[in-house]
């Protein structure tokens, strides 16, 4: 009966349309993929990834019975870096896809701060919702969703990212459903001289295996009053390129509470850093490592239990690398250890700069005398935050992430040097502040 199974990979039990976002329905046709998909509820910690289940009493306000560990408690330097911004209030290790919607609805960044519908783009199966909002036009719906208040928008969705967000229902071909990515990659390709790029038309099947993830695992900001989800890729994907873009458009995410510097917050640029690593260069896609093939009966399928590859080394790495599981784990961790060492050095240095600027400011230093130090904090903090927020602890692009840290360290040094001559004049005004 294995042969039978093999010959008809797709049992069409139900007819799928482009309006069904319920994964359970799709699961009738593809039970193997659906079963694995549901397992993203699992929580297992790796040295630097995965996630740890912290039991928690469910309350009316926050019905979750377990959350993942708090990163700002594990490393208080993060909290200090973000003082003045919602992230200093609540920031946890990310976990499996199954949690994306419930985690967003219940983070204190949403319950205690006003957020726009834009947040939803990456935390729910929004394809059908956006289509409805736009009267069939996804991009129009996207614009509308972004402008809704979060509390309202989130009523329109039910599921975390689902089959329909990555697949065409008839052919099961991969597709891009998120206007944010379509616009981002178009701007990126334009900067490389490729006009009018459309991944749904122009990308190879192998590229699509990374692009579908690049819809969410990317750095972003909310542009203008429409709060349009925007990826800062107009000059390229390197840290410098994204920074230059923000400089050009004059964007800041918040003003640092202690120093007064106008700073940026970076978020999960996995796609950007992965793109600069040796694996991307070798044609390896996100799905190759995070959704490796597995054999089920007489069939090979893509493991829809998206998770840390270090929990699945045999399938994720050993197809290409002929070293033992332990050795592959050690290699990844050696890269991560080196990264963490450099990252910790840079983080401590940043704290020094913040502390020094803060003291001078409290002592009444003029804003003008702090300008250079602010600029240093803005750039260095963004760079450190980028590689910190990039969730592989340096693995996706080992050399590039370390290079970015050297640049950050140099910037901090220059910032500290700039404070050398500063004389805090108005010591009295401090109390009033």
């Amino acid at each position: 009966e294995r042969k039978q199974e093999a010959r008809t990979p797709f049992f069409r039990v139900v007819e799928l349309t482009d309006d069904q976002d319920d994964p359970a329905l799709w699961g009738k046709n593809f039970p193997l993929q659906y079963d694995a998909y549901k397992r993203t509820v699992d929580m297992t910690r790796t040295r630097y990834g995965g996630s740890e289940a912290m039991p928690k009493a469910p309350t009316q306000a926050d019905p979750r019975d377990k959350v993942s560990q708090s990163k700002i408690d594990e490393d208080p330097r993060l909290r200090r870096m973000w003082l003045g911004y919602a992230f200093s209030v609540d920031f946890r290790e990310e976990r499996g896809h199954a949690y994306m919607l419930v985690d967003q609805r219940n983070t204190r960044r949403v319950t205690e701060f006003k957020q726009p519908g834009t947040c939803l783009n990456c935390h729910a199966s929004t394809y059908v919702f956006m289509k409805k909002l736009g009267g069939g036009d996804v991009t129009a719906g996207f614009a509308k969703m972004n402008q809704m208040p979060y509390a309202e928008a989130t009523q329109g969705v039910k599921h975390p990212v689902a089959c329909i967000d990555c697949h065409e229902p008839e052919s099961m071909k991969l597709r891009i459903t998120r206007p944010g990515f379509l616009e981002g990659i178009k701007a990126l390709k334009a900067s490389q001289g490729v006009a009018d790029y459309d991944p749904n038309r122009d990308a190879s099947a192998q590229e699509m295996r990374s692009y579908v993830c690049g819809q969410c695992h990317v750095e972003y900001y909310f542009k203008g009053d429409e709060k349009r989800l925007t990826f800062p890729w107009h000059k390229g994907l390197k840290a410098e390129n994204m920074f230059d873009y923000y400089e050009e458009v004059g964007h800041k995410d918040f003003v640092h509470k202690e120093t007064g510097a106008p700073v940026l917050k970076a978020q999960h640029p996995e796609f950007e850093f992965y793109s600069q690593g040796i694996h991307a260069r070798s044609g390896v896609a996100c799905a190759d490592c995070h959704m490796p093939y597995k054999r089920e009966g007489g069939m090979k399928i893509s493991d829809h239990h998206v998770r840390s590859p270090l929990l699945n080394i045999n399938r994720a790495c050993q197809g290409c690398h002929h070293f033992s599981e332990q050795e592959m784990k050690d290699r990844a961790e050696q890269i991560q250890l080196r990264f963490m060492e450099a990252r910790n050095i840079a983080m401590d240095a940043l704290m020094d700069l913040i502390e020094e600027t803060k003291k001078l400011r409290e002592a009444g230093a003029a804003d003008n005398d702090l300008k250079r130090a602010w600029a240093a904090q803005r750039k260095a903090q963004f760079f450190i935050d980028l590689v910190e927020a990039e969730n592989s602890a340096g693995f996706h692009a080992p050399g590039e992430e370390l290079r970015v840290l050297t640049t950050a360290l140099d910037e901090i040094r220059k910032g500290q040097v700039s404070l050398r001559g500063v004389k805090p004049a108005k010591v009295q005004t401090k109390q009033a502040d």
Partner: protein
Amino acid sequence: MNEKGIATPLVLGIPLGLLMGVGLFTFGYARGYSYMTDDPGACNNCHVMHEQYDGWLKSSHRKVAVCNDCHTPRGFVPKYFTKALNGFNHSLAFTTGRFPDRIQITGRNERVSEESCMKCHEELTEGIQASRAHNEKVHCTTCHQSVGHAH
């Protein structure tokens, strides 16, 4: 290295007769006729094939596939055309010594060996191929590069 087989002007300039002569010489000397069999030992007649032969002996496919299972296409005519073409190319390269030390598979043969996986693994991989367009099939050797012979 650009010494990749016969497509260089210099080689093309050699009179056909001489070419035939060289080809025939090698054909006998290096037991070129062995190209007509499916015996992997035949490929190994050229010492430059030792590395692959040794690799194949240690490979997961030793018991299930010989060189020609992977290096010739399906069907009698395509198979023998490929053998003839490669036999000629390799003999010539071998005789002139014009090829890189670390032999690199060339476009056409790469496609042949990629497609050959389907001779045996079509059913198993039907699922992962089904959602893809015909010209966008999964490249098996990205992950399984050493099935035939570790390099």
